């Protein structure tokens, strides 16, 4: 029956979300985003998250090139980038990425280049993981809607 396919997929969505919350990858701010999605704004979550992906990747690229500079001195600029990434991560509920940014800022405040590079690696890794999981989430959501599930709201 059409309904049960959608139900199963909804269960998959919930399971993935529960996992992400449990692992500290996402926090309740992500739920807030979901609550803001409704018939007047049915793609709000993916819209905002996609902006987040675009901006974050730009910031991460810039951070890497700033840190790879032969004569590194622009920690102020690095700090600005980190703050932006921290802020936007916080705004979408990307808790783990945000927390890594805090560590990054600490290293940057100490002008600790080695520390910064180390944290950047963690950050890039955690960001990739987040992106993959959110893509997975959106994919299952799409399938659920195609299977006849209601598009919004996203949560129970």
């Amino acid at each position, binding site marked *: 029956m059409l309904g049960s396919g959608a139900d199963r997929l909804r269960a998959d969505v919930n399971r993935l979300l529960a996992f992400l919350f449990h692992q500290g990858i996402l926090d309740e701010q992500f739920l807030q985003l979901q609550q803001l999605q*409704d018939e007047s704004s049915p793609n709000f979550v993916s819209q*905002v998250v996609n902006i987040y992906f675009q901006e974050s990747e730009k910031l991460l690229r810039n951070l890497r090139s700033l840190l790879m500079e032969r004569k590194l001195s622009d920690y102020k600029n690095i700090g600005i980038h980190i703050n932006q990434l921290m802020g936007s991560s916080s705004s979408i509920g990307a808790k783990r990425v945000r927390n890594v940014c805090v560590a990054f800022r600490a290293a940057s405040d100490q002008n600790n280049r080695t520390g910064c590079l180390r944290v950047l690696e963690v950050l890039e890794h955690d960001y990739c993981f987040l992106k993959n999981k959110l893509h997975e989430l959106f994919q299952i959501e799409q399938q659920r809607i195609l299977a006849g599930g209601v598009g919004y709201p996203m949560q129970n």
Partner: protein
Amino acid sequence: MGNMATQTQFHVLAVDDSLIDRKLIERLLKTSSYQVTAVDSGSKALEFLGLNGENEDEERNSSVESVSAADEDHQVGVNLIITDYCMPGMTGYDLLRKIKQSSSFKDIPVVIMSSENIPSRINRCLEDGAEEFFLKPVKLSDVNKLRPHLMKGITTKTEMQSNTNKRKGSEEIQSPDRTRPRYNELEVV
């Protein structure tokens, strides 16, 4: 559109240099049935209000074409301004000061948002006229706190339109007589 009597929606001007935060605040406000204009800087906010220079009269002679929502017989219909604190160029605090120094706009409630919980910063904003200080990420529960400030503004706006002396005067700048437990407790989201 309307004069005060027929205005059905409050209009909020949101100021934030972060695109994501603009999207978020816009959605939060629209969900709460507010009309929203979102700009990415303090100077654009002032431009929108029609406050181009320090001179008050600029607002009347201003020929700001694109951004301004001012029309002939009304002042700009903004009922509340919500602004990020940390912005390049003009900070949210600078914007707050400019608005409170403006005779036309000083009665518009201003709310500040910040991702950083710095009590001295918060207190300074509140002492200098901000109605509320929200810690980011901003939620619906925060936006729900805006309504009383907007409702309070209705009588004020009517007075502004008839150009009489505002009875509130300097009372408007209220100090922390309101309890804001969240800031004292350093309870960050």
